[in-house]
């Protein structure tokens, strides 16, 4: 009995005001912050790639394949934070074998599989098929065997077949854009449809998630493009970088406007939950909301990228500004997810109290586990860049 009281005492020491017993411990921690963050990076990187392909923004060519490979690297890891949060990897396949059609969460397995198998893998395969066939003829050893497998036996390099690669790839990209929207809009839908939670329940949530996903994905590709060019000691294509920055700026404006609209609507409506939400953002979320998300993650990148639209300093200065902006945007969008996921669980649904979130260092829900899931995509990307280097591809133009 004594140890129960001790545990109860510890739990109650993290509570302020009145809170229901099941609200003291947060059910969704850092791993659930990572899940929409990583999924968003995938959707954003893919949408940047489709700008080149579908909307014919040719100057983005240097980043097109990099964006696709980045999207794939992060997509392969996107489900793993969920798996480690749920804690039963041996049962993970059940989401596919016994799907529950009435549950938005349960459908994720199929949304994910569609995006992986039908969109990303196929698009990359059509894009690289000719090069894979050529590389399979000249490369020996393990890498050569890998290339031979990746050709899937389609080694025809006649102009007609290569034209088909292009056509089919184009169709896949067309299918891919709404799929990317569904993939991330869906994540926002999950939160937006929790009607008992006033911090989450808004129809704008899927749209906000989508635009912040685009912002973070574009910032990620921008950062990776600069980092890869630096590591390869190659000159950065400033025209491409300026164009990415331009799109990042435009979409950041839209994202900022939508999130602003959401908050203004909340403030103007001032429903019964408003007081507790006001206390939440001015109290427990003050640093992560106003300083990290709004000031560092949105306003500074907006001002600096906006300035570069009218005033163009030297290349070196621009590169530094782009580097800083992309990192700040990535930082800010991470805390946007944090403020949604963690923030939504910090206040009591009685609207009379708060709890605290304690992040553990180790354990399946801890900080080290989360860092692992963030680092692994970069290793996968390094492998993919070794296997399918965009700079060794044959370009038609």
């Amino acid at each position: 009995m004594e140890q129960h009281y001790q545990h109860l005492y510890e739990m109650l020491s993290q509570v302020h005001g009145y809170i229901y017993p099941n609200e003291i411990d947060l059910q969704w921690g850092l791993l659930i912050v990572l899940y929409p963050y990583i999924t968003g990076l995938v959707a954003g990187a893919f949408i940047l790639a489709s700008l080149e392909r579908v909307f014919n923004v040719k100057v983005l060519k240097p980043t097109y394949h990099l964006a696709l490979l980045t999207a794939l690297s992060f997509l392969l890891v996107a489900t793993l934070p969920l798996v480690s949060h749920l804690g039963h990897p041996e049962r993970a396949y059940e989401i596919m074998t016994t799907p529950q059609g009435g549950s938005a969460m349960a459908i994720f397995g199929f949304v994910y599989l569609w995006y992986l198998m039908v969109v990303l893998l196929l698009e990359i395969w059509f894009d690289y098929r000719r090069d894979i066939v050529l590389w399979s003829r000249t490369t020996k050893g393990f890498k050569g065997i890998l290339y031979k497998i990746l050709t899937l036996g389609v080694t025809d390099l006649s102009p007609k077949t290569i034209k088909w690669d292009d056509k089919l790839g184009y169709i896949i990209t067309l299918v891919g854009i709404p799929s990317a929207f569904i993939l991330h809009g869906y994540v926002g839908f999950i939160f937006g449809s929790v009607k008992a939670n006033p911090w989450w329940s808004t129809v704008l949530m899927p749209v906000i998630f989508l635009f912040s996903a685009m912002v973070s994905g574009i910032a990620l590709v921008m950062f990776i493009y600069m980092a890869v060019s630096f590591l390869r000691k190659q000159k950065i294509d400033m025209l491409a970088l300026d164009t990415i920055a331009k799109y990042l700026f435009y979409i950041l404006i839209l994202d900022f406007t939508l999130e602003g609209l959401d908050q203004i609507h909340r403030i103007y409506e001032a429903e019964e939950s408003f007081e507790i939400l006001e206390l939440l953002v001015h109290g427990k979320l003050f640093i992560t909301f106003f300083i990290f998300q709004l000031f560092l993650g949105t306003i500074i990148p907006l001002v600096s990228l906006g300035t570069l639209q009218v005033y163009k300093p030297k290349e070196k200065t621009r590169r530094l500004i782009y580097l800083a902006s992309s990192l700040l945007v990535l930082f800010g969008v991470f805390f946007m997810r944090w403020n949604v996921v963690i923030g939504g669980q910090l206040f009591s649904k009685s609207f009379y109290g708060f709890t605290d979130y304690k992040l553990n260092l180790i354990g399946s829900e801890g900080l080290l586990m989360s860092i692992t899931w963030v680092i692994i995509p970069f290793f996968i990307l390094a492998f993919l860049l070794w296997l399918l280097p965009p700079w060794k591809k044959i370009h038609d133009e």
Partner: protein
Amino acid sequence: MPPQLKTLIPLFAIFITLFLVARYFLVPVSFGDQGHYRFYSVEENKEKVMQYAGKDACTECHDDKAEELSSGMHANLSCESCHGAGMIHYENPETTNIVKPDERVFCGLCHSFNPTRKDKIAQINLDEHNIDNKCIECHNPHNPWE
């Protein structure tokens, strides 16, 4: 038909077939019979050993306590709320016994002061109220205000 599709369509067909075959073996028998769950799990749960006997079972032998309880403020409480699960005792009354908590903190679970509690539950400050005595020395737990 382009050669890419000649390969990809059969590949996807094989993938989908393999998935359906795997699903056939992986979905447990009786899943979906009566809803989105494994219907046999109901029978399996029924087979579990019962822990709680229920108030009627206690009354069979302890009708005096049950009557005493029914006339007081604790009338709506189940015996096992305080005495713990009693099935084992019900089945072997000679060799096993239920718990009889008598510590102050136990009563405090419901009666220590808490502003969010309903007023009709009597509340005291455990640190001030008659601290040298056990609650049950003054209050009969089966009829606290007798």
